[in-house]
């Protein structure tokens, strides 16, 4: 079980702040492929991965990051703080 979190427009498109996902996905990219099958909102949110950033267990990561032992994956657009 992995907690998947969404922020900003990914949260709005998917309509969820978080969901628990039962998955055997080996990498973030594999997880994204699974998530896209969950519905139209999910599919749309991940349509352009160049516009999506990911954090694995609350650290910024790449889409090829492994998910073994991971508890939390978050997806969000490029950050705009400051």
């Amino acid at each position, binding site marked *: 079980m992995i907690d998947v979190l969404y*922020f*900003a427009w990914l*949260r709005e498109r998917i309509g969820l702040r978080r969901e628990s996902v039962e998955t055997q996905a080996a990498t973030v990219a594999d997880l994204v492929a699974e998530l896209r099958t969950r519905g139209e909102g999910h599919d749309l949110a991940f349509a352009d991965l160049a516009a999506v950033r990911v954090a694995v267990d609350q650290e910024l990561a790449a889409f090829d990051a492994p998910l073994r032992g991971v508890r939390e994956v978050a997806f*969000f*657009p490029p*950050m*705009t*703080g400051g």
Partner: protein
Amino acid sequence: MPARIQQAAFDAGAEANAFAAGLAGAGAIVTFTGIVRGDGGLLALEIEHYPGMTLRAVEAFVDAATLRFSLTDALVIHRHGRLAVGEAIMMVATAAPHRGDAFAAADFLMDWLKSRAPFWKKEIGPSGEAWVAARDSDEDALTRW
């Protein structure tokens, strides 16, 4: 406490004075305060963040700046939630024996906060709401360091 993430407004001058009062050996203090601008009829800004990650990420930037620039001390305050035009969004304060380090560290922290701290801004205007797009120039700024 080198970093605070909060919904509440803060008093930038009082924070700067409290920061200065705790220093020993600093010759230079630089502060940066970001303010909500009312461009294009903007009514408010809504700032979302990633509670589990934000504070640790910001503290990591402060640690990196402190190591890199011979700082006496550094502070980051960043708000989330709904902010009206004219309100302070965030502030950075840096203190160092010499001014070059204090200026560079404040600039460095701003670049990292802009592009690597998990905050997202939504502009609320008269004709609707829109997420602020990240600018390539913000990402490029990180390559300076």
